């Protein structure tokens, strides 16, 4: 497995872990936020997974599936957890294949314009974005007295037995 495939597998694990944790919170807890982050726990989690849907769609070159998580319509966090798992399977398979990081692909931006970028940039953004919004969720949880789940790559490595204690 390449260094990149390991980083993608970690992202899959961490997003599923955080999604499962947040989905199990009470509705009042999921409505919590803290200054300096993007919004509530629910909004941040939906955005985290919805963006991952769009990154996968850009890499596949096809639109997101009908049951994809979307910021504009998704309210069921059970669906978010299920799609996080499905996206993990897709990205896990994608990471195992040969990836031409220099191949230029297109992405439809929020304003409707078409943007071109090498796959390597989309993957750098995808990994950054997951870490960024998981960190915001960790801040919201901590700011509101809820111990966040342990989702670092070292925690992942330990859980998988890649780090011995």
């Amino acid at each position, binding site marked *: 497995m390449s*260094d990149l495939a390991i980083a993608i597998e970690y992202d899959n694990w961490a997003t599923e872990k955080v999604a499962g944790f947040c989905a199990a919170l009470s509705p009042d807890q999921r409505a919590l936020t803290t200054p300096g982050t993007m919004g509530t726990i629910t909004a941040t989690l939906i955005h985290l997974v919805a963006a991952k849907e769009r990154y996968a769609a850009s890499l596949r070159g096809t639109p997101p599936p009908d049951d994809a998580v979307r910021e504009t319509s998704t309210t069921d966090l059970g669906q978010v957890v299920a799609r996080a798992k499905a996206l993990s399977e897709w990205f896990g398979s994608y990471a195992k294949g040969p990836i031409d990081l220099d191949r230029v692909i297109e992405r439809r931006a929020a304003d409707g314009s078409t943007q071109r970028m090498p796959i390597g940039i989309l993957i750098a953004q995808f990994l950054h974005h997951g870490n960024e919004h998981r960190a915001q969720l960790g801040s919201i949880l901590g700011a509101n007295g809820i111990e966040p789940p342990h989702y670092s790559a070292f925690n992942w490595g330990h859980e998988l037995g890649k780090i011995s204690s």
Partner: protein
Amino acid sequence: MGAAHPLEHVLRHNTWATMTLLEFCASLDPATLEMSAVGTYGTLHGTLQHVVGAEQWYVQLLTGQLLDRPRIRRTERHPLTELATTAALTGARVLEVVATDDATRRIEMNEGRGSTVGVILAQLVHHGNEHRTQATTILGANGIEPPPLSGWGYGRAAGISEAEE
């Protein structure tokens, strides 16, 4: 700029984002560096120093070399100019590591723990994004618009991508 290694853009983004954040914070009123926000690591300066100090340690784990001595420890305050020098050195060194190292090679860490190279690289990427996000949370919570640190921003700065938020 093509990718010579699967993690190249991810690691170049990591260094670019840390350097961009350090440069931005160096331009602020020094009192801003003592600000914090609930749910984050600590002060803005402490968070920046932690990002760079941890990366110095990860590179030491990977190479056995301590770059830009002395070791950055939380008990001693290091100026932002010094942190930028260390971040540039570790960022360059880690690119050399991924070009030659084996993701499955085992490394002895501390307290008898061992890890693989791949997990340490995933942790390096996660950790940088996690704490830069905490830094931007501190800035936002204190009414300061943070600089863009995304993978899209890196791609535009490198002149190889049209993508933006």
